[in-house]
């Protein structure tokens, strides 16, 4: 397997520009490009595939530039959002296509197609046509077709977005299993933060044609560097506060931030633990399945807390007017 690296990539259109200074997917890693639609993540994937030519910059597989290689010489596998199964070919023919292009002997093709279909748990559908398959089955055939050629890089473009929620979760773990099993370097494009968190070794969050931050899922979740990353990955509390001598005060709470001046402080609702005490005024609360969400006012600022119902130290039907607050993890944006 290989590492994939983008260096100084620029792709310009009339009304949009994609700029990637540097992005590297390590050998055997599943790197997700996460962002809202139109952020340039699919274009990035297509540049890696060679389906799109950047105006400048380099794509390297294992340190070797592949810019001038057409897609068919890059030894990649792609799964498209709508799968792009060839409608005039059976499942077998679809999966065998890449092997036939590589001119493998007949026996070898049959053996490998069989193995690929086993890998995605779809043995016995060889003679069906794509239109006779369910969405989930088509998705897995597309995956088998991409994997059967033993590509050095697997590229997945929103592969689960056309499926309903239940199948999506099942296929998500299946993709993860296969990726771990084959240890194949994988670039995964999605706009779904839950999917990204669940699957990825690392995530690159993109916005407006730029990479905002790259990191492990939890690192991004709790320590975003920008407000965009913070907001895109889930609900957040973002407060504009003043730091003096490296310390931020919020009511009776104090935080060591190490800098002074105006700061933007960020923390997740689940980092806010509610206890008995007198730090904050309870503005409102909502009971959710197994959880509870409070709206609290501290020092004139409204923050949200979310926690397990079982962790609340008082009777939730009659909460006190004032509660104590503890913020475990925070970040400065």
């Amino acid at each position: 397997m290989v590492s994939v690296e983008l260096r100084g990539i620029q792709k310009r259109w009339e009304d949009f520009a994609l700029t990637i200074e540097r992005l590297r997917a390590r050998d055997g890693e599943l790197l997700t490009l996460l962002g809202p639609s139109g952020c340039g993540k699919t274009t990035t994937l297509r540049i890696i595939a060679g389906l799109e030519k950047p105006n400048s910059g380099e794509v390297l597989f294992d340190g070797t530039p592949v810019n001038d290689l057409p897609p068919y010489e890059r030894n990649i596998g792609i799964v498209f959002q709508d799968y792009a199964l060839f409608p005039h070919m059976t499942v077998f023919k679809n999966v065998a296509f890449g092997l036939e292009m590589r001119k493998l002997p007949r026996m070898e093709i049959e053996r490998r197609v069989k193995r690929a279909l086993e890998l995605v748990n779809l043995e016995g559908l060889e003679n069906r046509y794509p239109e006779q398959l369910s969405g989930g089955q088509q998705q897995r055939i597309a995956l088998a077709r991409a994997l059967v050629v033993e590509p050095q890089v697997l590229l997945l473009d929103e592969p689960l977005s056309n499926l309903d929620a239940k199948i999506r979760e099942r296929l998500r773990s299946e993709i993860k299993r296969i990726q771990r099993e084959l240890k194949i370097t994988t670039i995964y494009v999605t706009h779904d933060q839950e999917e990204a968190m669940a699957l990825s070794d690392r995530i690159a969050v993109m916005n407006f044609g730029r990479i905002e931050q790259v990191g492990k899922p939890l690192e991004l979740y709790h320590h975003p560097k920008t407000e965009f990353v913070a907001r895109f990955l889930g609900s957040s509390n973002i407060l504009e506060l003043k730091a003096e001598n490296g310390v931020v005060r919020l009511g009776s709470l104090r935080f060591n931030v190490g800098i002074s001046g105006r700061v933007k402080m960020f923390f997740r609702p689940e980092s806010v633990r509610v206890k008995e005490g007198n730090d904050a005024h309870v503005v409102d609360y909502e009971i959710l399945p197994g959880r509870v969400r409070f709206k609290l006012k501290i020092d004139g600022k409204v923050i949200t807390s979310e926690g397990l119902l079982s962790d609340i130290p008082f009777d939730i039907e009659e909460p006190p007017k004032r509660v104590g607050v503890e913020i475990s993890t925070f970040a400065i944006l």
Partner: protein
Amino acid sequence: MRMRPTKLILIIPVALLVVFFYVPLISILQTGLWDNGPTLKFISSVLVNSYHRRVIEFTVAQALASTVLTLAIGLPGAYIFAKYDFPGKRTIRAVLTVPFVMPSVMVALGFILLFGRGGIITDLIGHDLGILYSWKGILLAHAFYNFPIVVRMVSALWQRINPHYEEAAMTLGARGWRLFWRVTLPMLSPAIFASAMLTFVFCFLSFSIPLIIGGYRYATIEVDIFTSIMTLLDFRTGAALAVIQIVLSMVFMYLYLKSLDAYAKREEQRVMQRPRRMTLSELASLKGSLIITYALFIFIFIVSPLLAVLYDSLHFNGVWSLENYRRIFSAEYDPMFGASTLDAIRNSLTFGFATVFLSLLTALPIAYSMHRWNFRGKRVFDVLATLPLASSAITLGLGYIRVFSGTALYYTPWLLIAAYTIISYPFVLRTVSASLKKIRPNLWEAALSLGAKEWKAFLRVELPLALGGLIVGSIFAFAMSIAELGATYMLAKPEYTTMTLAVYKFLGARQFGSASALAVLLMLISTAGFLLIERTGEEVW
């Protein structure tokens, strides 16, 4: 995306177009506009001549009137096909493909047998309706050819109109006529306009029909060019008329292509309304009986000229007989064409297949490059490759006489095949391009990512998916070459007489029985094409 384009594949198409279209075209322009320097004197002498001026006016007028009649017959059909399922709909839908493949000489013959003196309908109602040798016959025959286009294009779009629009309008108080006028019609207009423009262009360039059932008084420009050259040997006048015709038809063709763009954009809408199956009580209502009457009418309209030809071919001196068939296969007519009937059949088939081959050889590389590549001057190239649509067989014939007479090519079948190819390849190009456009681009990308080179991805993935369009285009090219009359008449040596030309010569000699018998054979070939199209399940327009 651009990747190592191998432009070499365009060499054959470009060479064919240059030699067999652009060089002849330039020679016509030169004949019509050049006399020791550029001049408009040939054009103006045509325009001041009252006969030619009347021909030009008549050509435009009859095309307009034919289009109106075509719409009048086709639009109710479009409505019925889009909205209702009724018994026999499949048959009627199939029958609508028939005019697409039937040679116009045969249809003209059918009209003569129906409406002429001693014609079947004339006898039936006891007096001559005056349809033959008048503008009425021309209009009717043009409607015969073109109303299926209107039915298909308009009903296809009608089915795609999102029913929510009409429902929303109804909740806002629009209904009946007002609903149609204010909401439905504006949404249908691209289809109506595109099909009307196509009809207009076909009628404007019509040759065989006005030649045979219009007579001298109702000549179109196309017929006028033909007679100027063939009867009067006046090439200057012929070329001047051709220049006028090309300029006009380019304008009309431009409007057609524009309207087609608008139509194609609307056609992409995914919504599909299934036609409603009519219940028995609905069929018995006034609406139901109107629909059944209309269906019967178009069935009879299309089938009767063909049946008339078949009926006539089986009659000799007023009694049922196979004598006509015996006669055309005996040697007594050979001196008239300089070829036997068997020769004519063989010529038609060989030229037809050669035309299909050359049309594919021309159209496929162009379709591929337009579909796949972005290159400088692509728009110009597109226009240059489509321009033959605005020319006509007679114009080509004139150009070929100017350019090739005296060369080794002259009087060879190759010149005929070249002419057929130039007039029919744009249709192959259009059907193939349309099919290619419908293929999702990521199938091609998937093939590339799996290791297929560009041409392999095209051959293995895109071409098989465009096969329906390719077959329909090929059949159309075949049908056009078989049906071609004018250029064949101008360029064919007697031994290269085709079936269509032979039918025309029988007609000229008032040998209707023999004409019918040969036309029936022609009809059999066309029917084979028709059945093939039915098998592809592809929409024709």
